[in-house]
């Protein structure tokens, strides 16, 4: 299956659950404008938009996605608004966020 071809990933009808979505916001993923709901994890918004590859392994450059989705495993590290090593499975989505695939281990900004 093509990476970006996953459509209809949002659950609209469910026998038990009702999903109260936040405000719709726009953010960028490697420069591409995407939409998600405010307050949901960045990884959920990316996944719903068909993005499963969040980064690459430092040595062998193999594609990486999330694994645990609760901030334990660090498989989902990305650069968000210039800050590297953000666990996007728990980091909440905000309007205008700049989400980028991270190359290597990332460099902390001097004033960070």
């Amino acid at each position: 299956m093509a990476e970006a071809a996953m459509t209809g990933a949002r659950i609209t009808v469910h026998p038990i659950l009702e999903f109260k979505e936040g405000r719709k916001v726009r953010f960028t993923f490697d420069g591409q404008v995407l939409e998600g709901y405010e307050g949901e994890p960045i990884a959920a918004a990316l996944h719903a938009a068909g993005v499963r590859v969040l980064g690459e392994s430092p040595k062998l450059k193999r594609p990486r996605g999330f694994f645990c989705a609760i901030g334990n495993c660090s498989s989902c590290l990305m650069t968000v608004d210039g800050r590297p090593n953000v666990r996007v499975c728990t980091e909440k989505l905000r309007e205008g966020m700049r989400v980028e695939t991270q190359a290597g281990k990332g460099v902390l900004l001097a004033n960070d």
Partner: protein
Amino acid sequence: MRTTEICVIGAGPAGLCAAIAARDMGARVTCVDSGDRPGGQLVKQTHKFFGSRAEFAGKRGIDIAGMLADRIRDDPMVEFMLDSTVIGFYDDGAIGIEHNDALTFLRGERIVCATGASERMLAFPGNDLPGVYGAGAVQTLMNVYGVRPGKAVLMVGAGNIGLIVSYQLLQAGVEVVAVVEAMPQVGGYDVHARKIQRVGVPILTSHTVKAVHGTRVVEGATVVALGSDFRPIPATEEYFHVDTVCLAVGLTPLADLLWQAGCKMAYVPELGGHVALRGEDYETSRRGIYVAGDLAGIEEASSAMIEGTIAGLSAAQSLGHEAPDFEERLATARAELAALRSGPKGQKVRLGIERLMRLGREVGVVA
């Protein structure tokens, strides 16, 4: 520095029940959790619980989280610190807490550690491809945030989690092509297995995943039959066209804090890995640090709640707090725990606890 009487680390079923029990004894409680809401992993459990009424049998986990939290949410004796990750124990007895990128410290006279568990991995080629997700991750994505993990899923593991999450995937409109289980029999409850078998999902016992294929993301998986020696049987490979492989191959206690605190640990496979030696009151070898829930040994949410109650009552009592029903509550909790662990499905846990207590007696942690 911020201080409290009982510091509860983790606001899942065990931690919340520890906080409630300690509060009931009259103790001041601070409950710290890395998540943005109390409930831990209950917040994604859409199925109805079994067990005893005291542990909410018949209720869904998602509702239990709220009901437990409501008992202490507005209590002046209880403080919640959410979005707050405990990062370590410090020499002066304080714990370090990261909140909003800042470090704060909290000193509790007693600590109930209820950090839960993390998911186990399985070794096979392609296990790092995006689309290979832990069962808990799949639940979080679809049951908390309403996003389907994929279109077609291969479930690995037919314990209760694998069976329940398979059913939840079907409820979310996702195809489950098969459930594979390395053991010759289903590990979870029959009632959960039948729910997915009724709608045509095959449960392949004595089978495992041999490899997951794909260039950038999961595109398929090869399943193979296992002999009685658990070795793959040649020429039994079968290919499944899936975009997601869900691993429900067990949990292991999230014990980093206990190691760092210097608690005496033991490897007890029946309890999921390394667990702290502890007494009947769930106090570890390091005085003042208690454990409860999956951290004390992998079981279920129902037993986690009872362990939390026991640890909370005991920790508060050790500080001199009293309640007229203390003895009765403790006895009831112990009886309920024994009932939950009775029967053939509880045998593994019973063996594990026996071993843990024996090791504890050898080094003097248990009287």
